């Protein structure tokens, strides 16, 4: 057995890490957070040039034909570097959704451009205030056009196209590909909690839409499970960075004549972070296995990874500030960049309560006698 990534995958991970370190991804996060740009185009282009957007796309569609495991290690490093780029929207979500579909025309048209970074995609799903249940979708598709409003769409003001969930008929939810420069699209950029990642409300009014599937609820659930594993890796990367920040600061900060890292209150706080992080990481590895094998355990494994990674990143980013004392609460220190990102990633694709409920639902199903 090898319940770990392969040497090649770990090498790839190291390469991504090196790039993000060299490019000072955390500093770039701050620049986007404080500036006017919606994302860091320079960093994005470097990731594209490295081939990362092409990772899971088969060679026949212009990709490099690797798998989800490679995407997992990339996600972890993007999380560690809290990178200010639309990778999760375009790669975890839009690319995966198209890869999942059987619409050969769409694949041929979009995958090569996604691989080359020529276009950026996103997934527009949330409406009003909660992550939607099947009955909560009001955007409607009819005769190749969609009408309605999606809220807080990640990268909604960056992406060239969006996959949009919409009612396709009686009790059916379909999935549609919409060109965001098309007629009847109105995009409102939002002021958000983590301005290093752009979000927008998007209204559609008789906007032309290509159908991926008219009966897509199960596809959407699967897409969420798949992306949940990738988001979880991103969260684990961020959590580990925050834990290490806390530890490093505590080792170098002196109070009462000793490094504060020698006080049990601090040691046990960091040990708690470590425990939370290890549990999350191990659950993520299982999620990665289920994801890459398209295993029937995916719904359970994805929810488990997602719940524990959300917990780990929130706790590590929160207690990292506390470990830094007053300096941790200043704008100047980087602690808050991780805290903001932790909160953002908790909300994207549905928050903690939703995933805990999903987890138990999937366990009830798998434990049922049938």
């Amino acid at each position: 057995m090898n319940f770990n990534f392969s040497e090649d995958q770990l090498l790839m991970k190291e390469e991504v890490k090196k790039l993000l370190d060299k490019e000072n991804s955390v500093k770039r996060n701050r620049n986007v957070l404080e500036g006017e740009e919606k994302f860091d185009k320079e960093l994005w282009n470097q990731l594209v040039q490295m081939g990362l957007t092409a990772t899971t796309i088969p060679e026949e569609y212009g990709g490099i034909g690797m798998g989800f495991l490679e995407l997992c290690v990339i996600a972890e490093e993007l999380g560690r570097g809290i990178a200010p780029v639309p990778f999760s929207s375009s790669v975890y979500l839009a690319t995966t959704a198209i890869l999942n579909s059987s619409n050969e025309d769409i694949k041929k048209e979009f995958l090569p451009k996604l691989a080359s970074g020529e276009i950026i995609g996103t997934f527009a799903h949330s409406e009003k205030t909660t992550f939607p249940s099947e009955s909560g979708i009001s955007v409607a598709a009819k005769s190749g056009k969609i009408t309605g409003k999606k809220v807080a769409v990640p990268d909604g003001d960056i992406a060239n196209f969006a996959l949009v969930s919409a009612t396709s008929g009686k009790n059916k939810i379909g999935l549609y590909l919409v060109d965001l420069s098309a007629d009847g699209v109105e995009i409102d950029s939002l002021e958000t909690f983590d301005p290093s990642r752009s979000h927008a409300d998007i209204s559609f009014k008789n906007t032309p839409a290509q159908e991926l599937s008219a009966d897509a609820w199960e596809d959407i659930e699967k897409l969420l499970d798949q992306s949940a594993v990738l988001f979880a890796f991103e969260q684990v990367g961020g959590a580990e960075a925050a834990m290490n920040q806390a530890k490093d600061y505590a080792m170098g900060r002196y109070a009462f004549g000793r490094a504060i890292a020698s006080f049990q209150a601090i040691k046990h706080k960091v040990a708690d972070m470590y425990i939370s992080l290890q549990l999350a990481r191990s659950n993520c590895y299982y999620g990665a296995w289920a994801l890459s094998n398209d295993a029937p355990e995916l719904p359970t494994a994805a929810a488990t990874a997602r719940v524990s990674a959300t917990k780990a990143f929130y706790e590590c980013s929160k207690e990292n500030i506390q470990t830094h004392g007053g300096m941790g609460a200043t704008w100047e220190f980087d602690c808050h960049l991780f805290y903001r990102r932790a909160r953002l990633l908790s909300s994207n694709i549905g928050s903690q309560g939703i995933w805990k409920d999903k987890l138990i639902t999937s366990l009830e199903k798998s434990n049922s006698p049938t």
Partner: protein
Amino acid sequence: MDFNDTKDEAKFRDEVNSWLSANADKKEHAKDIYRPAEMSGEGESGESSALKDAKAWQAKKYDAGWACLHWPKDYGGRDATPMERVIWGQEESKFKVPGGFFEIGQGMAGPVLMLYATEEQKKRYLPPMAKGEEIWCQLFSEPGAGSDLAGIKTKAELDGDTWTINGQKVWTSGAHYSDYGIIVTRSDFSAPKHKGLTYFFLDMKSPGVEVRPIKQITGGANFNEVYFTDVKIPDSQRLGEIGDGWKVSLTTLMNERLAVGDASGVDFQEIFELAKDQDFNGDSAISNGAVREKLADWYCEQSGLKYTKMRNISALSQGSTPGPEASITKIVSANKLQDIANYGMDLMDNASIARDEETAIFQGSLLGAPLIRIAGGTDEVLKNIIAEQVLGMPQDIRVDKNVPFNEIPTGSKN
């Protein structure tokens, strides 16, 4: 076991109420606040209008004998009992009145002047402080000395009758609009840590004092760094003996910890209302057992703090002095604030990320809570205080006692 005033207390409360009713507007809802004419924009300090209004209200109170009412009449107070002070606070909080600028002066600088200043100084400085004419700040924390306050390095050197101050303070709220400050400095670097400190008050307009705002993670800037370059302080403004500054500081800190109150921001009521309005998984959030259980936990904490305060006031009314037990208020309320804010954002799910009327208070609280968990004593320092001062458990092992200060590692190495 009753919440009723004694006869004297009731009479006093009536008197307070008549004056307040005649001079201010009653709140319609408990959450009403005073809004200055010119509102401050987000992230700016925008205090000019708020400060003007606050000074006007404080002066009005002063003229009618309602400022610092537990202070002696000679220094601008009313010689009121501690319970009368509590009653005043309870009643004033029912009115829409400005405030927020005088607490540090009146709560910390005032008491220390009362103990250590000359009679002449008290007569000079306390009445304008009570009236709100002169504002004071507290210059204690330094970049390398937060929880370990005695680790400060700002240097004070005596030449003749004049001290020269060099160094840097941090986390000074209100430094930018203060007229005077209280400051603790190190006058002897070769003495043990707690023995080489000396305490002063100074004019914040003195040459060599430079104030720079600190931007917090909320985007606001309520605190400052203050730099001292060859700032002169006459020896007559020393409070306490040379080398005795730690003792003087302790008086001030005790008052600081009493002054720290509930964390402002979202509390039970906000999350309760949100849970009633919000959908969760296709149903009303408040009908979900997980939400109900969390609400119950927070209600119990909020209620527990409320009635702990009542018990403290009651003890005050019976003549006791409140002790460090009040530390629990800050630990519990700051963590509750952070938890509620985060949970509220969970409930609002993806939409919580956008800043709008509904999310703003949850977002603001989530960003503000970390600072509250640190300001005026971190969770960890306050738990030490509870263990040591309330429960009588031993101090942590101290490696910095009886060692010359300049041999002790301090501050930050990265």
